[in-house]
């Protein structure tokens, strides 16, 4: 589903990522772990073209991204098949929860409003928030907002979901709500790449753990192997 080959990203002369090569099989969960500044988020953002890279290439959900500037059209195609959930939720504050979820299907995929709403309500139900369909993001807790963000991303029926430290801004209680949703998705066979510091989650859900240190793949393998002996 995802292949990354010899990827290198340079920011202000520093190689943030260097010779990163990895493969994510369909229906598996890969967690990216490692120290802060190791390049986890940058790698994730390279996967859907939010950031560009200088060397190597990426194929994801059947699309290929090469080094250098991406064409807007190509990026739009990639992003329709690749969802992303951000650390800061980034819900659209001027829209209700249900409108956050239905906006992209309607305007990007052209789904009729009634159908988009029906599917959106199903998704909110799935993340346990159908009661809050008409609530504005500002009235929701952080955990609720992140779950709406997940539903918003799922509404595009992505083949791959990218999570960028989805629980870092949340307290343990709310983190648990969000992680439950993600684990549930994993069980459903959703291909996912999750940047996280939470080794507990990695152990619980990850098929593969990739540890990035100083922009390079330090270790990669099954969770039990990589995380053996590690704390958290």
């Amino acid at each position, binding site marked *: 589903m995802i292949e990354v080959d010899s990827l290198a990203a340079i920011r202000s002369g520093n190689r943030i990522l260097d010779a990163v090569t990895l493969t994510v099989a369909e229906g598996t969960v890969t967690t990216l772990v490692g120290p802060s500044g190791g390049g986890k988020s940058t790698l994730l953002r390279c996967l*859907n073209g*939010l950031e560009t890279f200088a060397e190597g290439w990426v194929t994801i959900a059947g699309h290929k991204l090469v080094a250098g500037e991406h064409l*807007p059209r190509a*990026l*739009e*195609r990639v*992003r*329709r098949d*690749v*969802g*992303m959930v*951000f650390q*800061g939720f*980034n*819900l*659209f*504050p*001027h*829209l*209700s929860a249900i*409108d956050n979820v239905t*906006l*992209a299907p*309607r*305007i*990007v995929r052209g789904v009729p*409003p009634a159908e988009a709403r029906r599917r959106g309500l199903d998704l909110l139900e799935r993340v346990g928030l159908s009661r809050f369909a*008409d609530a*504005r993001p500002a009235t929701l807790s952080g955990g609720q907002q992140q779950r709406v*963000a997940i539903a*918003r*991303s799922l509404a*595009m029926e992505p083949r791959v979901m990218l999570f960028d430290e989805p629980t870092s801004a949340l307290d343990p209680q709310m983190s648990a709500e969000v992680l439950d949703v993600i684990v549930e998705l994993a069980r459903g066979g959703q291909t996912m790449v999750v940047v996280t510091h939470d080794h507990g989650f990695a152990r619980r859900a990850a098929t593969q753990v990739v540890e990035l240190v100083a922009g390079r793949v330090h270790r990669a393998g099954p969770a039990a192997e990589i995380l053996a002996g590690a704390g958290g």
Partner: protein
Amino acid sequence: MTAARREGKWCWPWWLLAAVGLLAAVPVAGLAAELDEVRARGELVWAADQEGGGPHVYVDPEHPTRLTGFEVELAAMLAAELGVKARFQQGQWDRLPLLLGRAADCVINGFELTPERERDWHCSRPYFAYALQLVARRDSPVDSLESLATVGPAGVWRVGVLTGSAAETEMRRRTDLQVEVVGFDGTVDCLEQVRGRVIDAALMDDCIATFNADRFGELRGIGRPFAGGTYTILTAPDTPLLSTAIDNALGRLITDGRLKALYDRWDLAGRQQMLLLRDAAEVPPARRGSLADLIRGALPLLLRSAGMTILLSVASFPLAILIGLAVAVGRLHGPAWLRPFLAGYVELLRGTPLMLQLYALFFLLPKVGLALPALVAAILGLAMNYSAYESEIYRAGLKAVPAGQFEAALALGMTKWQSLRHVLVPQAVRIVMPPVTSDFIALFKDTSVCSAITVIELTKRYSVLALSTGRIAELAIVTALLYLAMSWPLSLLSRWFERRLERRSERDPG
């Protein structure tokens, strides 16, 4: 394309209003606002020929750098009535009217009121009554007008007149007289020729003859003055407001006795002048109508002009917002080559006066073949001017939307324009609502500048009415009340607009 269509749907009421504005343009065009130009300039430029001589306009013999004459004083009084200073413009007497609209606002130089002049120019109410006086040497055989009916010793009589004057018309009309009419450019020249026996007599306005009596001791008036008429102030036919203002100012000078005092000062028989002028001019009675009558008469006019103020505001501001938003989006997200042009647009419109922009739209565009009706030019000018300010506000608003919003929209597969349309702009609109609302109020007041290009809105109507009626304070109060009565619903309208945005976004952004 989808985004563009939705954009159009989103703002249809404003386009409707703009369309109404365009439709309403036709009946309003054509009224001139030249009085404003005079006021803005601070000078009423009046044309006369100082060579024409006294008592009208002549160089003071004691102070050769100074111009004097009863018309010099009259011009100063009229200008003061209009709230400006008078500036003299020299021209050859018979061509003075050609200066109108180019080098002069009005001609004040003993122009007799004639049907021809009334046809070609705007003629004010009479300001002076004259009669024609025949002048000859004391030793001349000419002793009456009738004596010109028979051929003199040297053949036909040679009679000098000022070219283009009523005296010339009169002489040429009198086919019963055996005269050759000799035209002069100045009456003093003409009198010199009589004194030098080059011509036999001269026909001129009585006041000129009287004025020059001391200087030309060898000459005398022959018979009684006859064939009288009045002087009028000429203004260009397409400056009706200025004409009216001058006419009204003159009326006040006549009514309150200042003109009589002027003529008395110049030994021009003020009392008799008033008798003739009031008779000829149908000067409005000195008494004032009741306040109720005044308001009853003025209110419909003021209300209609208030409607114009509203129309200008509600038609131009939405356009300003749309253009401003487009410029802001273009500067932040448009192609690189476009950005300097948009920056230039903003700087040009912010850096030059609104009045100048309106002038350019209304007076300069026709020179390149694009003649806009006044109302269209006014709405467009206001919209463009304010679009520059709105674009800066929107630019700040768009920048204030967190970067994560744009990323989240892009990550969902939206195009840049979809992200702008559905995510960034709606949030920016909310951020900038307070400054934009205050700009709307500013534009509401700036609509008064449109009178510079002939659109008569409330302030303009007030000043016209106040000038013509003299009820400056009373009408000011009525006008102020009208402004208040308008600004309140307009502020309700802008609040409604704000609420509607809120509601729409809750329900459905598309």
